[in-house]
């Protein structure tokens, strides 16, 4: 196959095109998903930091998951 690619075999062009389309589409989709995730993580982190101190402490005490989200956001930053 590798040899055929260098010989620009017509069949190999179809093979390469389909593999390229799949990997490029998957890469773009991955980047887009990652960008959306980061955007929401940052927005969430900002919203929490905007809360008054007493309220923020109360929210963090009551919801374990918010703690997890904030920790993961800090790690990714």
């Amino acid at each position, binding site marked *: *196959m590798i040899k055929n690619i260098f010989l620009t075999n017509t069949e190999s062009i179809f093979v390469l095109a*389909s*593999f390229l389309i799949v990997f490029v589409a998957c890469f773009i989709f*991955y980047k887009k998903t990652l960008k*959306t995730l980061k955007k929401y993580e940052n927005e*969430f982190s900002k919203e929490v930091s905007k809360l008054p101190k007493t309220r923020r402490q109360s*929210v963090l005490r009551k919801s374990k*998951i918010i703690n997890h989200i904030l920790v993961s956001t800090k790690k990714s930053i």
Partner: protein
Amino acid sequence: MFHYFSFTSVFKIIEKLINFINSIFFIILTIGLTFALVLSPPDYLQGETVRIMYIHVPSAWIALGCYSAIFFLTILHYIFKIKNFFIISKSIAPIGLLFTCLAIITGSIWGKPTWGTWWAWDARLTSMIILMCFYILYIISIKFIKIDSLKDKISTFLILLGAINIPIIKYSVDWWNTLHQPASINITGTNTIHSSMIVPLALMLLVLLIYCALIFLMKYKTEIIKIKKKNLFNYD
């Protein structure tokens, strides 16, 4: 039983899974591509173009698998009214749409050298286009309908209606005379594909499944954050 599906318990393992998948993905991708493009033999009839099968077939399987998963989750959501099932369905749908489009595009590219045409309105191809339409309608309905009860009803109706198409896709090559070949791999019957081609096919399926898992986890995490952000002012 359903407390295992709670956001808190699920969120804990998402981070670990994403890191794990990121660490192993490129190793498995390299092995899969080596088998698919270098080690597997060309077909006696189709020559090198048979290698398109290694991405076309797993893409089609994933497209059908995603729709089936959404179908079962929608039924569970309808019966038990657990919002998490809806969130999971919502996260799976874009993956299903992506792989339906990829199955159609790679199938079209494969069709040109083998059938002599990019496209034919035969049963398998047309039913895949219908599947794509149902994915698009489902995604539009959950994205643009703001009233929750109406959104639930319409999305459930669409998924149930589209589920009729799943057996049609599967058996279209047996029920009608089509350009598309019949299934080469049967779980219950005998396979008509050589073992030297099953290994790269299985490896490429694994690569794409791992990719799907990664995207699903990221989308699911985003959905959880969206919900928590909305409920941030309700912790009283």
